């Protein structure tokens, strides 16, 4: 129940978050000066918090989507499995977000 509405909320967040990807791509297509300017925004603390939230929303929506694909096959409707998939989505999204940001820290220094 809660997870269903979270799937919608993360979906809506990713919807508007697509502007971030567009901004980055347009900056890259514009030139070095504007690209560096945009990167400096992403490097601020609010910028990083937004990107961290975007990463988590993406991972949560991805795992939640997989859960829905499993349900589409008609499987996984007993309460034990529903609970397992719900908690798995939450835990998995946090673990994947942490792994991605650890990898990012390794590549770019955070």
């Amino acid at each position, binding site marked *: 129940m809660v997870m269903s509405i979270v799937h919608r909320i993360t*979906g809506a967040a990713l919807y508007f978050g*697509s502007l971030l*990807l567009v901004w980055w*791509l347009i900056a*890259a*297509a514009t030139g070095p000066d504007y690209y560096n300017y945009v990167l400096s925004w992403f490097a601020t603390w609010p910028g990083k918090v937004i990107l961290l939230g975007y*990463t988590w929303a993406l991972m949560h929506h*991805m795992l939640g989507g997989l859960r829905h694909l499993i349900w589409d096959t008609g499987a996984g409707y007993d309460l034990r499995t529903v609970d397992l998939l719900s908690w798995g989505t939450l835990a998995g999204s946090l673990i994947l977000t942490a792994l991605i940001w650890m990898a990012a820290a390794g590549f770019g220094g955070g």
Partner: protein
Amino acid sequence: MSMRTPLKTARSLGSAKDGADHFWMQRVTAVANLFLALFLVWLLVTLLGADHATIKQKLTNPLIAIPLLALAISGTVHMRIGMQTIIEDYVHGEGLKVVALMLNTFFAILIALACIFSVLKLSFGA
């Protein structure tokens, strides 16, 4: 003259007249996005700290540019259908709903075009 009964025309299409198209397209793009979004995350992580020249160089590679273009299409189709579902569930005034659905389509197309334009510009080395 058609020998089909009215029932035959309506069958499995429902009141929206396009049947389960959205349902199916949302699943197809979901599966595509699963792989394409993971690709995007990998790309962004590996590009962290890279300067503009490196980004430009990377985007000339078709193996980078084509998945990004695929994501631009699959992602915006998926988010348009998803937002349409949300609008239809929560916006009940007929006029407001039509406006919201239209804005939703415009937004999705604008995002898609901006992504595609930028990726192509970088890919073709302009």
